């Protein structure tokens, strides 16, 4: 037991509370009260941003919501299935470039998002086949190579078609003006994130989620109980790249332009940071991490400029944000592998324990009173 704990700290720490009773096998039961409360909170935050915030802050919030999709996808791959990947920016790029391609071909709005996401999912499936054979360190290297190859392809496509300026894509809600456009985007993305969260939660708490965790923890034993490692892993690769492609596609319609420069390797690493900050194998963690990491490079420069009166170089803030990213990754990996979600869980447990203790203390006293 001790040995296991050393090798996979989060897995064994999470497992005791995570093994939920058989009643959860009904997917509808997966939508528990805390989950619905969380979704409600997200809706409230969206209302707050649409009503009270400036256009720029709404833009930032939209970026956070978009990042949630990618973070959920990477959380599935890294947290639930245990496949470390640093190629995720490539799949976002594929979604965005697919949308640009379809947009130029004249495919109307919702169809191009759908086709681009499905195509990215398909490419993820193709990449997944060789990835079945490799794991651990080798998979990290393989995804790194995939990233560079995909980025090479998009660079060549971009420079051959439109040159360095990048593709122009029709912006959704452009006709409603800047402010209302951002507002409509918040509503659209809140609904999308809500739906994706619900879907992922049902998958996560059902048969698939259990099979994935089993593969993560005991890959050799999984086939012995009838879990096809190969099918489930491919499924995970497909679903996660589909989600990343979906995010990229929405991002293209949100920004209105698609360039390769928008998908550096640092973007991949920031998604890894989201999952680690939030906590591996936690959907709540992915949402929190996406918010924190996306807002960081926007908030840190503001803090820097408000703190320092001297040189107003804008790059200083971005550099500091990079440092903070790195420190967050190091801190959460080495000190707190269960992330912010783990803290919240511990806090909630203590709270529950405290309430129970108080009840116990109160009830004997009441009994005494009656006696």
């Amino acid at each position, binding site marked *: 037991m001790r040995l296991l704990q050393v090798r996979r700290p989060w897995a064994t720490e999470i497992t005791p509370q995570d093994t939920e009773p058989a009643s959860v096998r009904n997917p509808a039961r997966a939508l528990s009260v805390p989950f619905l409360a969380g979704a409600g909170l997200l809706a409230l935050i969206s209302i707050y941003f649409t009503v009270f915030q400036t256009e720029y802050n709404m833009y930032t919030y939209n970026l956070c919501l978009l990042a949630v999709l990618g973070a959920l996808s990477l959380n599935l791959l890294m947290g639930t299935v245990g496949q470390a990947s640093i190629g995720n920016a490539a799949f976002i790029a594929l979604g965005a470039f697919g949308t640009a391609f379809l947009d130029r071909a004249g495919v109307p709005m919702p169809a191009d998002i759908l086709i681009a996401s499905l195509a990215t999912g398909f490419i993820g499936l193709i990449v997944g086949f060789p990835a079945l054979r490799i794991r651990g360190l*080798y998979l990290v290297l393989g995804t790194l190579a995939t990233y560079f190859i995909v980025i090479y392809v998009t660079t060549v496509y971009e420079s051959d078609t439109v040159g360095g300026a990048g593709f122009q894509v029709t912006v959704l809600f452009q006709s409603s003006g800047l402010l209302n456009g951002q507002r409509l985007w918040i509503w659209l993305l809140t609904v999308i994130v809500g739906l994706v969260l619900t879907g992922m939660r049902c998958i996560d708490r059902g048969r698939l989620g259990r099979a994935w965790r089993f593969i993560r923890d005991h890959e050799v034993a999984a086939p012995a109980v009838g879990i096809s490692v190969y099918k489930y892993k491919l499924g995970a690769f497909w679903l996660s790249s589909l989600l990343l492609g979906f995010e990229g596609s929405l991002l293209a319609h949100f920004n209105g332009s698609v360039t390769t420069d928008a998908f550096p390797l640092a973007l991949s690493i920031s998604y890894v940071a989201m999952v680690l900050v939030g906590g591996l194998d936690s959907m709540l963690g992915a949402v929190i991490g996406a918010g924190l990491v996306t807002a960081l490079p926007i908030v840190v420069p503001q803090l820097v400029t408000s703190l320092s009166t001297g040189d107003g170089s804008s790059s200083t803030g971005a550099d500091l944000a990079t*440092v903070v990213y*790195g420190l967050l990754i190091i801190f959460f990996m080495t000190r707190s592998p269960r992330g912010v979600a783990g803290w919240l869980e511990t806090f909630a447990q203590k709270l529950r324990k405290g309430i129970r203790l108080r009840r116990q203390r109160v009830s004997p006293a009441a009994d005494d009173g009656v006696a």
Partner: protein
Amino acid sequence: MSTTLTLLANGLWLGSTYALIALGMVLAFRATRTLNFAHGELMLLAGYVVAKLEANHTLPAYVAVVVAIVATSVAAALVYLLALRRTTGMQMFVAVVVTIGVASVGDGLMAWGFGPNDQYLRLPGIPGTVLSVSGARVSLFTIILGGFSFCLAVAVALVLRYTRVGMRLRAAGQNPLLASQGGVHVERIYTASWAAAGALAAVAGICYGASNVVNVSVTALALNAFPAMLLGGLDSIGGAILGGIIIGMIQTAVSIWGNGQLAGVSSYIVLLLVLLVLPHGLFGTREVARV
């Protein structure tokens, strides 16, 4: 004929650079089984330190080089002591992700501290002579660099094989628990090997900076050494040298007959192929999985 010679010369230069970079990575991997994504940042640090010392303090170049090597190896040792040490016993990719975090910190700090400008190193004793061999122009420095990486690799291999420290390092890398029971201070050995890997990174960074330029592109160069390392087999010193030369030759060949962009990505195509066909590389230790 001249194209072939140019290919050989340029390939040798690029390959020796990769070999030097991969040498440091292999040393760190031998000890802690970690792929070091922050190796490029260590190289960059050494380059910047030499450039700044030369520019600001007019120190003799050799003093600046020694200071840079010491500073970089201290930085690498600190990376191990402050961050990587805490990942002992966790899954392998945890340590890799931590080095990615370290790389991110290094990128930010160096961009902040040294600015975005390119730096050039002026080291005396670096020959600018260009030999003309049957029509092809071959820089003398290329040949020296190739020989130098080869000698350094031989030295590292000899130290690993025949000294007490080398033996301890191999033992600690293969089986930390058993090594510690045998009286090896595993943490000290790991720290020392990370410091040595940092020194090798500094040497690689300064060599590259002396013949080229010191800027952020060095970190991308270091990522390109992963294919070389994997081709050599991840944990083989000789493999790192051979892998580096092969990758350098392939990239040069692609840039001569194809284009520059394709050359940059060709090493990653090789990486994927090696992963699929030859996962233990040319000289790597085969991992035997017992179920």
